[in-house]
């Protein structure tokens, strides 16, 4: 029994397909052509997009105090909130972090997309290696695209500044509070209230998220285990292939066939290495991101609980005041408003999240299947190509009936 049966009705939300990463984003020259490509692709819901954001072109900066990476953020928009039609700025990870905290502060009723992990947990990875930077770039691009797709978040002023300001540090220092009305009011909700029971629909969301995160965690562990086993298999293959070469050096007629087998195993080893690299770089990070995402949603749920708790407490307080016709005071009404807005925002975000999750996982898992198919296809090609070599010079007397079914 799914918690989503209430949301069967189609919404007119901007449910856009997952933007995905355009190919070849590492080339610095062509980000505007990339944006053009996006423009053409995204008319799917009949809604025209008016905001496009791309993260690309990572660059290393070496200063006296530190070394860090910046990414180019290119924005194209027809919205009135943007003075210019196009912007190009450079941002580093801590800027993204700043943006995220600001969004959380100013839009507490909404689910803010997760950022890739700040610190690299497994110390083996080099922060400045090409693979790491590329993985991070993709995640940051995803982050901004999710915000762009959000009907409320994409209009957030902090987001605007992030995309447009020449020097973000000025804004950071000034600490301009650009809180929305809702943000302002929710900010004042003190944490002292405890919710008795979560309404069914939100409890269901909570349960779902718990199980979901659990399953993702398991899948993450399985995927890591598979990669580990594959790497160990690769180590053995790298010793196995060359032994055929050694043998080939001893032989006359068998020299070429043996050498052929050795080369073939070498090709399969390379294909396997590509598979494990892809899985490490593309599959695992996205999986982990979704675990962070569901954690974010859980904290939003908790905030919602807070708001409801406050409302219920205040309501109770009023009921306890023995009046004949208790008039609901203004501040209790405000609480109710707050709660109902929050509930609506959260439900809408949850539905959007569910749809995106479905697209994202479909793409992720199909990608995993694809990578494995490609691996086997490379190996198949290698082995099929040496069959004629092996069959060469077979005497007619002894035909080999190799069944290639």
């Amino acid at each position, binding site marked *: 029994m799914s918690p989503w049966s209430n949301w069967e009705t189609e919404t007119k939300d901007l449910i856009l397909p997952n933007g995905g990463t355009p190919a070849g984003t590492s080339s610095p020259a062509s980000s505007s052509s990339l944006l053009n490509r996006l423009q053409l692709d995204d008319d799917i819901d009949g809604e025209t997009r008016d905001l496009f954001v791309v993260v690309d072109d990572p660059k290393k900066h070496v200063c006296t105090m530190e070394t860090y990476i910046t990414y180019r953020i290119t924005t194209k928009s027809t919205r009135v909130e943007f003075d210019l039609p196009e912007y190009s700025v450079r941002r580093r990870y801590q800027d993204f972090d700043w943006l995220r905290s600001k969004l959380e502060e100013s839009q507490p009723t909404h689910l803010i997309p997760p950022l890739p992990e700040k610190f690299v947990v497994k110390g083996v990875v080099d922060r400045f290696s090409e693979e790491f930077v590329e993985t991070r770039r993709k995640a940051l691009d995803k982050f901004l695209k999710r915000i762009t797709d959000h009907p409320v978040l994409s209009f957030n002023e902090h987001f605007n500044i992030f995309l447009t300001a020449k020097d973000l540090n000025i804004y950071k220092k000034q600490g301009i509070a650009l809180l929305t009305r809702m943000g302002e009011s929710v900010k004042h909700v003190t944490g002292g209230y405890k919710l008795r029971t979560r309404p069914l629909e939100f409890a269901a969301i909570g349960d779902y998220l718990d199980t979901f995160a659990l399953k993702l965690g398991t899948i993450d562990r399985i995927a890591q285990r598979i990669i580990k086993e594959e790497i160990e298999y690769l180590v053995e293959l790298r010793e196995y292939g060359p032994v055929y070469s050694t043998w080939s050096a001893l032989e006359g007629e*068998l020299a070429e066939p043996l050498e052929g087998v050795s080369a073939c195993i070498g090709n399969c080893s390379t294909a396997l290495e590509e598979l494990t690299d892809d899985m490490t770089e593309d599959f695992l990070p996205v999986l982990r991101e979704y675990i962070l995402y569901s954690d974010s949603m859980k904290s939003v749920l908790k905030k919602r609980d807070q708001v409801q708790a406050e409302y219920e407490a205040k309501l109770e307080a009023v009921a306890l005041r023995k009046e004949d016709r208790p008039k609901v005071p203004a501040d209790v009404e405000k609480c109710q408003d707050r709660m109902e807005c929050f509930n609506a925002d959260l439900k809408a975000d949850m539905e959007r999240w569910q749809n995106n999750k479905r697209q994202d996982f479909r793409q992720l898992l199909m990608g995993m299947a694809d990578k494995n198919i490609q691996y*086997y296809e490379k190996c*198949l090609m290698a082995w099929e190509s040496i069959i004629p070599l092996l069959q060469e010079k077979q005497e007619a007397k002894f035909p080999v009936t190799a*069944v290639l079914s």
Partner: protein
Amino acid sequence: MEQATPDPERQLQPAPLEPLGRSDAGLGVTVDEEAERAREEGSGGDTMTHNNFWLKKIEISVSEAEKRTGRNAMNMQETYTAYLIETRSVEHTDGQSVLTDSLWRRYSEFELLRNYLLVYYPHIVVPPLPEKRAEFVWHKLSADNMDPDFVERRRIGLENFLLRIASHPILCRDKIFYLFLTQEGNWKETVNETGFQLKADSRLKALNATFRVKNPDKRFTDLKHYSDELQSVISHLLRVRARVADRLYGVYKVHGNYGRVFSEWSAIEKEMGDGLQSAGHHMDVYASSIDDILEDEEHYADQLKEYLFYAEALRAVCRKHELMQYDLEIAAQDLASKKQQCEELATGTVRTFSLKGMTTKLFGQETPEQREARIKVLEEQINEGEQQLKSKNLEGREFVKNAWADIERFKEQKNRDLKEALISYAVMQISMCKKGIQVWTNAKECFSKM
């Protein structure tokens, strides 16, 4: 000194048996071709060939294995496996086969047969037996001799051994081999009565010869070197292959976990549920496919193992040559020294050290009669020695000729067999890749329906 030529007593007369093609489909060698080759090789003074008519074909199979218990030489109870050997004669005209003989043998009897062949056919590369104990195992396979998979592979190996002998132009005509297939009781006694154990060269003697021979035929030296290298490289290959199999097993089996977690996850999803569930099923199929794949690969490993053991047989022929050559060199040396002694006695000069010389110095000169007697003895010995040297030389040359002929035959066989093994290995890999593509394509389709 064993003869290089087959002893007529041990040959079948007349030989009702012929070498036959292997009963497995792979090689399709016909009897006639084998006969052709046998005639061409004309090994040794085998006069039997010319008179035989290849009337009947014979099929040999080791069809069953059975666990038995019995009492061993020390009257202790033991468990062993017995193998059923069936021989069928196939009528040339209608291809129908009739069971002519059927008996049970255990591994130790196969060993006895092989040891006998090694002694009486030292110039032949004698086919090896399958391994006594399971080696180069990867973790799933049991190293236990009683394990049914091991017993099954051994059954196939023993059948292969018999077929190799039966298709060898010289070995197939051996009487003891014939009796092995046909005479259940008393066979062991019959073999032992040939006295072959006594005729066997001692290990020590052979080792000694290896280090001291001065002029071995270079071809044999090279061949010995080759067989050493071959043994080393195939051992290495088998060891690594076992590790590769182990790791591959791990990769496939872990994927089975996806099956379970996808199933659990699908329970909380609405639209994604069916896709996840059915993809999980494909992951289970993938995980279980590795068992058959690796079982097939064991067959490839067995083919390699046979040639690993063949390397030892090659080395045995080389050792025999070294032994004969060494023997020859010693005899020549001995003869030369006797001649010299004789000369010295005749001319009265003593150049070489001899015990007689010493005692003469110590106890006085010998009489002319004594000297004459000694010269005569020496002359007789020299004569004998020269005859012996002549025949040893002849034997040596015969051995080299016959051995080299069989080695050439073996080379051809090896190249054919190993090429076939590599092809079947490639075919196995291709099949594995295709299965992989199939499973992941199915899974991808399920994911696309999510």
